[in-house]
């Protein structure tokens, strides 16, 4: 029974990773940039939701929508101000900019409101259900549901809509896409908007589920979500969700064996093993670099 409980613990942890990884994987898929800022957008989303609930008295769903909107705008601004200029420069320059922007956002937030954590108000009722002897909180079921629904919606957007088609085209070959009359700038901005809105949603849900938010909260979930995205095959939407679940379960199993202190190390070891033996991830296809 303990193991069944642990498995469920792993899935609920994994669904948080999956939620963040969805946005990560979209942005990476289109501009091939490890968007370190994603973790900070997640943090901003979480704080937006917090202020909406605690000070303006909004309910859970209005706050979620508000936070997604704010983050979408925020993401597009970051893309336009910082990344657009770097589209043709080296990958290293882009990555360093991402690190710089991410530090900048963290410390501006600390400058404005201090580094102390904030506790999320209770907006969603939380009941503990007892199913076959394992304790399941209703909130973790909700998160699981939200991740899967978002994944399906995203999959629909990317594969069935016009903008999705444009995204895939830009991701495949930006120059050719441009020649075919696709507005590359708008497509990239749209990707950032969607990815950042997802991060915002993840921020609010994280806040409700784990209660504690602080200006540096985005770093570790951001890294873990990246690992999840790589695990599933970066750029592949169902891959991000599956990667999140696998990572969550592995971390939980490591803790369940009494090695909770090695949990983060386990995540990084998985990352390295995947990178070395199957760099395209679980769902990815191997591609050879051409001259």
């Amino acid at each position, binding site marked *: 029974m*303990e193991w069944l409980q642990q498995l469920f613990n792993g899935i609920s*942890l994994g669904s948080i990773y999956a939620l963040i990884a969805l946005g990560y994987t979209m942005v990476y898929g289109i501009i091939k940039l490890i968007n370190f800022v994603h973790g900070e957008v997640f943090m901003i989303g979480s704080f937006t939701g917090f202020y909406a609930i605690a000070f303006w008295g909004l309910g859970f769903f209005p706050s979620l929508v508000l936070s997604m909107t704010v983050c979408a705008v925020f993401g597009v601004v970051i893309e336009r101000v910082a990344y657009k200029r770097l589209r043709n420069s080296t990958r290293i320059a882009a990555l360093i900019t991402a690190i710089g922007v991410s530090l900048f956002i963290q410390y501006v937030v600390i400058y404005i409101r201090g580094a102390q954590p904030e506790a999320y108000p209770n907006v969603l009722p939380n009941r503990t259900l007892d199913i076959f002897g394992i304790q399941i909180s209703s909130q973790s079921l909700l998160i699981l549901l939200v991740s899967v629904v978002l994944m399906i919606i995203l999959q629909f957007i990317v594969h069935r809509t016009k903008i999705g088609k444009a995204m895939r085209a830009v991701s495949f070959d930006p120059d050719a896409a441009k020649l075919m009359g696709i507005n590359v700038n708008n497509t990239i901005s749209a990707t950032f908007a969607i990815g950042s809105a997802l991060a915002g949603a993840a921020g609010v849900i994280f806040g409700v589920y784990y209660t*504690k938010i602080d200006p540096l909260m985005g770093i570790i979930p951001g890294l873990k979500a990246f690992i999840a995205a790589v695990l599933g095959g970066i750029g592949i939407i169902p891959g991000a969700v599956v990667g999140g679940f696998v990572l969550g379960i592995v971390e939980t199993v490591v803790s369940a064996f009494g090695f909770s202190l090695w*949990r983060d190390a386990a995540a990084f070891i998985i990352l390295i093993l995947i990178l070395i033996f199957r760099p395209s991830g679980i769902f990815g296809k191997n591609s050879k670099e051409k001259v």
Partner: protein
Amino acid sequence: MRKSVIKILFTASLLGMVLAACGSGDSGATSDGGGDTIHIGVNMELSGAVASYGQSDTEGIELAVEEINEAGGIDGKQVKVTKVDNKSDAAEATNAAIKLTSQDKVTAIIGAATSGNTVAQAQIANDTETVLLSPSGTSPNVTITDDGTLNEFVFRTSYIDPFQGTVAANFAIDDLGIKNAAILADNASDYAKGLGSAFKETFEAAGGTVVSEEAYVAKDTDFRSTLTRIQSANPEFIFIPGYYEEVGLIIKQAREMGIDVPLMGADGWDSPTLVELAGAEALNNTFITNHYSSEDPDETIQNFVTKFKEKYDGASPNAFHALGYDSVYLLADAIERAGSTESTAIKDALEETKEIKLVSGVVTIDEDHNPIKSATILEYVDGKQVFKTKINP
């Protein structure tokens, strides 16, 4: 080969330029000292991983300094504070201490908030004969080095980890009648590890059994898998030494999972944020050992709480605030009794500190430079700390 020569030359000359820049700054900066001000350095974690502790300590310090200056200073001398950020990094703490001692020529340093960053400055304090007073560095090795010698110029305002752990174990056995307990400690903090091992030692010596020993790392957010492990060992009591940021989440998640045994912790729990994080209901049946209680009707304490709320927009002071505040008064008292700002005199006066009334209790400094003071045990009832008992050393 020629290229390498030029590069070496250039490195050398660049170093020279920096040196020249440093040298020119030197003449202006060292003129401070003596006169009618007392210059105190504050070396704190104002940014980085444990910034919230450093900031709390600093807010307490600033309140106390403001009060002292309004009341006419120490022996008529105004107190001047120079704040330096050590970025929660031991190397930066060392650097900051060197700056404060050699550059600003401070009379004493208050800092740092955590044990590691205080230890990083201890050697400098001894070498430059500057009093170093840590408000909240609770590890024994702050005042006594690993090889057992006393750091002559290092003092602290808080009591040490083993004391709190012992108090908690005795309370669990004597007052709660517990036979088997679990420990869940923050492994990224020497504070929590110290408390955990002291608890285990005392608890087992008194006939109890520790059925499960687990650990987590600061900044973790999901403790469900570890708690599931603890749950399956069926303890009657869980000791959770750690800081409120994680403990709040642990309590919330533990109660959600149906763990309803008494939980206990220490001063690291003390923050209004804990109640917000865990929720008032989940906190019922939990206990802490602490330096003081902001609910304590004692006049000194209430005075401090009122003044603190005035200065910081109604925020409630936590233990770090109180210890930062007390550190200034502890130091001021010593300087007054020494009648001089000469550091050996202050050090001697601090060593002779006897029964001074501070917010965190009546303090006497012992031969290891640690304060002897009572510990308070509090119980959380519906989100409020209720005074349970006071245990004297």
